[in-house]
Every structure is written in structure tokens, then in C-alpha cells.
């Protein structure tokens, strides 16, 4: 124990912070914990009012039903392929376009950025019919390409990357250019490494959005072979007059796992980018 008053104050502040964040954490995780616990309960117990937390008699029956009734490998593979391709495409195309919009003056830049912003603001539902007609004419219906292409370059990602790249100091890029680096090299060797936290964010959010997307995969698939997990789960768990909560919760737990894995893996990249590059 040192008698250093600043350190002691720091420690006390840290403790207070832990208590506050911990309390907040309890409020945040409640529904998730209930979802996981309830996936081991029979339907009757899930439906009780007021709700119960620990399962009286834990059962794996919901999971057994999920894996036996659904052609799980097919839907899972479709979901993974679509989400991975969509995420990879957005990371690449949006960071390149975001860089140009933030740091490279070119004619049409403002128009393009305006259009990008504008389209984020149009509700998806109103464009679904034209998008389907377009996909149908391009022969994309009922294919993985049809599920991926419309979301491969999204306005949201460009906006995100542009905003992050704006905060990279120009001197850093200028220094590299003076050293004779090509724009591609500047982008690849300087901008992208500095964007790690932003790329991680974009990866997390794009993967999640693609993974959970429901309406488009439903509309764009005309056979069961191209259904993704959320579509299949809705098919089997949500009926006309009843919802099977047992199947739905077990399915939700399975569906959420890959998203959490992606989050845990990518959130490690929330590390300081600029300080480590030795910026003067």
C-alpha cells in the first residue's frame, strides 16, 4: 500500500466505475440470460406470467426438435456464406470508397456522398418491389448471388468509413506521398491499418445486419434450398395463430452464437491505432 493520494483516488474512482458499469451490465443482460435459460424449458414454462428464470427441469428437447425438424446444415451454410461475403465486400468496397470520399478530391464527390446519405434515409420496405423486379431481370432470384449482391456495397458502410478516415491527420498521408508512395500504397499501408477499429466496427455491424436480415432473403429465395437461418426459423416457429416459443428461443440462441463469436473476435481490434504509429 502506498500512501500516494492520487493513486488511492484513482483506485477509488475505478471501483466506483466498476460498480456503476456492473449495475448497468445486469440491466443489459437480463433478456439475453432469460433467452438462454428459457431455451431449456418446455413451452408451458416459458409462457408463465410472471416469468420464471431458472428452468425447473432443464431439457434439451427444444434443441433436439430444432436440429431434427430443420435442415440445419443447409440454412446455416447459406447464412454463413451470405454474411461472410457481404461483410468482406463491404469492408473492401466501403473502405476504398470512404477513403476517396474523405481524402481524395475528385469531381462528383459531393454528389456521390449526397446520394449515399440520401439512400440510407429511404425506408427499405418501399424499395423491395423494384429491387425484386431488378433481381428477377438479372436472373439473380433464388441464388446466393441474389442474396449478396444487393447488400455488397452499402451506403451505411461508406458513411462510417468516411467519417473515421476524416479524422486521420493529413500530414501522415502527405508524408507518405512525398516519399513516393502510390495512392494504393498509402491506402493499404497507412489508412487501413489506422482504420482497424473502424473496420472492426463495420465488420461487426455488417455481419449482424446480414445475419439477421429477414425480408429480402425470404422474398429472393423461391426454394427452401436458398433459405437462410432467420427465414427457416420463422417458418418453423411462427405459425398463423400461434408462435412456438420453445423452438423460437432455442433457435435464437443458436442464431446468436456466431454473431457473438464475431463480436468477441473483432472487438479486440478496438485498440489505439494512431498512437502506435509513432505520429510526431
Amino acid at each position, binding site marked *: 500500500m502506498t500512501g500516494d493520494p492520487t493513486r488511492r483516488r484513482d483506485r477509488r474512482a475505478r471501483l466506483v466505475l466498476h460498480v456503476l458499469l456492473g449495475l448497468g451490465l445486469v440491466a443489459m443482460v437480463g433478456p439475453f440470460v432469460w433467452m438462454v435459460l428459457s431455451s431449456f424449458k418446455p413451452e*408451458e414454462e416459458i409462457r408463465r406470467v410472471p416469468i420464471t428464470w431458472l428452468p425447473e427441469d432443464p431439457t434439451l428437447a427444444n434443441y433436439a426438435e430444432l436440429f431434427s425438424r430443420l435442415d440445419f446444415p443447409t440454412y446455416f451454410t447459406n447464412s454463413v456464406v451470405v454474411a461472410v461475403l457481404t461483410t468482406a465486400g463491404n469492408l473492401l468496397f466501403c473502405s476504398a470508397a470512404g477513403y476517396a470520399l474523405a481524402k481524395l478530391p475528385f469531381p462528383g464527390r459531393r454528389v456521390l456522398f449526397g446520394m449515399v446519405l440520401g439512400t440510407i434515409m429511404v425506408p427499405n420496405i418501399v424499395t423491395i418491389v423494384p429491387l*425484386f*423486379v431488378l*433481381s428477377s431481370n438479372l436472373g439473380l432470384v433464388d441464388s446466393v448471388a441474389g442474396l449478396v449482391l444487393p447488400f455488397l456495397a452499402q451506403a451505411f458502410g461508406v458513411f462510417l468509413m468516411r467519417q473515421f478516415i476524416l479524422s486521420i491527420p493529413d500530414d501522415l498521408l502527405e508524408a507518405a506521398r512525398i516519399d513516393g508512395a502510390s495512392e494504393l500504397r498509402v491506402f493499404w499501408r497507412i489508412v487501413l491499418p489506422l482504420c482497424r477499429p473502424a473496420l472492426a466496427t463495420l465488420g461487426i455491424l455488417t455481419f449482424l445486419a446480414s445475419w439477421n436480415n429477414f*425480408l429480402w432473403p*425470404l422474398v429472393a429465395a*423461391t*426454394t427452401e434450398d436458398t433459405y437462410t437461418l432467420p427465414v427457416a426459423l420463422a417458418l418453423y416457429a411462427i405459425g398463423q395463430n400461434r408462435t412456438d416459443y420453445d423452438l423460437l428461443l432455442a433457435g435464437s440462441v443458436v442464431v446468436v452464437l456466431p454473431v457473438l463469436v464475431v463480436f468477441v473476435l473483432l472487438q479486440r481490434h478496438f485498440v489505439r491505432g494512431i498512437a502506435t504509429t509513432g505520429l510526431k
Partner: protein
Amino acid sequence: MTRGTSRRGALLAAVTAVALAATACGRDEGGNEAREGDRVGSGRASGEITVWAMGTEGEKVSVLADDFMRENPDAKVIVTPVPWDGAHNKISTAIAGRRTPDVTMLGTTWVGEFARTGALDVVPPDLVEPGDFFPGAWETGVVDDTAYGVPWYVETRLLFVNKAVARRAGVTGAPADWAGLKQAVRDLQSRGGARWGVYLQPGQTGAWQTVMPFVWQNGGDIHDGEKFTLDSAEATEALAYYRSFYDEGLSSRDRLREGEPERKLLSGEVAAFVSGPWHIGLLDELGGEGEYEVWPMPGGEGEFTSFVGGSSMSVFADAANRDGAWKFVSYLMRPEVQVTWYRTVSDLPAVQAAWEDEALAGDPLLATFGDQLDRAKAPPAIPTWEQIAAGVDTELEKLAKGTASPADAARAMQQQATAIGTGG
């Protein structure tokens, strides 16, 4: 994707947009006279038949398809199950993109809407006999005197009542008329000890299915063939009757969520509610078998006393295998296949002859449903019905919450329905 495709796509999108905006050549105001379908003839079906069906039906219809293929070895039925959630959007976009299957299942209130797009084929005259079906159910597929859908399975609404509460209240048997029902509900609450004598859905999506039967019981209707009649004296009286259950504290003004009605009925908190045959399964799963009974809806001046819903089968006009498609549909409507279907997923047969089977006739609960189906009807098969119904549901909520008078609500419903029109 190659750049070539993307340019072609961009061009196409641009053309679509420009064409939509500029050329808009005006719609062809076609007449609404009855049309005659082409015959399908006899003989076995052959070739691929693609079928869309929703939810449990989509998951299980392959059972019937297998039997069909045994009878028609040259035919191959390919079923795509579609989630109910989003099914309407999926069919709409498929029509716009011309990517429809041969056959699709449709909710009975959707047939009018999709028939009006011109995407549905007219039911062939030699396919089925309309008189074989419950009349109210057959009407759901008829638009402008032309049939576009064949009812596959049906449901209707009855009163589910907690037996123990009824016994305590001394209520024996179903009341015959409105006054009887009101008194029975009062007794269920005061003498039976239920917190609520009945639960009537207090407005919001689907409440019209509970309230329109009151209008029909009273001799009123939604549309008389020329105009909407939602503000008729009969309809207004029905709305007043509906509202009185809330005003007298007999029904909760708060909406129950999915899963709540069956629990509250079995616990005796709610003595009765109005619902369809699926509640038999839900109640039995909670161990409620034998704890409840069903009452037919009360009678009155009107011919019809309850609502009929369910699903139909329709064939698309540009089906690749039209004959095979209709043959599959007619197979589904055979009485013995309808019974098999009931045994598979508990869907009630739309074909009356199927009800003679012991599986249905021998069950007193189901027999009550069967009797009610003779006196059940659906809203008019007009394309705008869902939109009109949403307006009705809003006004019903105001009634239930006590913020609108029956006359105001009736006037508002009539006005909205007239403004929306029948989409013709």
C-alpha cells in the same frame, strides 16, 4: 459480378425508373364481368408442379403430395414452405417479378386482392363442385362472380367457456340470443367468480373478426353489393352491443397477448373468449382437456352468425404446368384426402362431405364447429379489404376504450371504407 452485367443492370434500373415516371400510360379500365375458366379435362397429371404453402401446412403438405405422386407417377410435386411472417410480401413481389410457382396457398382474405392483379387463373368449371364446400368458405374465393381460389381448410369462431365457472354460475348451455349471452356473461362474472365474464378483443389487428359476426347476427352486413353498409342501424346496434361489454366491466379493455387467453381461461380469471379451432390444441396442451366447452355464437335477425376463415389454393395464370397444378388442387379437395389432412395437421375440412368421417363427427367440440360453419361467412372478397379492416379495427379500439360512441365509430368506418373503395 462482371462490369458488363452491372452496366446492363444500371441501364435497366434507370429505364424502369424513367418508364415508371414518364410513360405511365394509364391503366386499362377493364370490366368486372364474370369470367369462365378453361377446362382441365381428365387423365393423370404429369410434369413438375411447384407449390408454395405457408407455415405448418407448408411443412406437412408433402405428405399429401407423396400420395398424389403415387397416383400420378409422371408428376413431381415440389413444395416450398413459406413462413406466414412475410408471406404476403413474398407473393406480392413474386407477382411483380413474374417468379410465381404453379400453385399457392392463400389466406382467404387475400384471394380478392391477388385476383385483381390478374395473376390468378380462373378455377376450371370441371374441377370441383361449389356446393360441396361450406357456402361461406366458397364465397371467399369468388370475385366478380368468378372463382379464383378453392377453399382448402376452414376455421370459424366460437365461444370457449370455462366449464367450472359456468357450473358455479348456473349457466347451462349456449345462450340463443344477445340478451341471453349478456346475461350469461354477467352470471359467469358475478356468480361464477371470474374476474372477467368474457374477453372480447378490444380493437387492434383482427378485432373485426370478433365484431363483424355481431353485425351479421343482427341482420347487418359490410357491403350490400353496391355500397358499404357499415353505418346501418343494424351495424350501429352491433357496435353498441360490443361496447356495452366494456362499459359494464364484463371484458378487459387491455389487450391480451398471445399465450394469455388460454391460461386465463383455465385459471378461471377469464370465463370465456371468442376464438377458432386452434385453441383446442392450445388449451389441451396446457392440460385443459375436458375443462372447457364451446358455444355456438348467438343468433338473431341475420342468417350468418360467425366468421369463416382459413386458406385457399390458387393457381397462377402463367403457371408452367397449369393442368397438373389444378389436378393437384382437386386432389386436395377429395373428402378422404381432406380427412387425411385433418388427421395430419388438425386443419378443418372445407369440403362438407369430409365431416361425416368419424374423426370429425365423433368429436362433440368439432361437431359444434361443423354446425357453426354452416352459418358462418367471410367479408367480401375485395382487394382493399385488409385496408378497410385496419380502419375498422382502429374504430373498434376507440369503442372498447370508451373514447368513441357507436354512432361515431360506425360513421368513421363507413367514411373510411367508402374513401378507400372496393379497388375496382
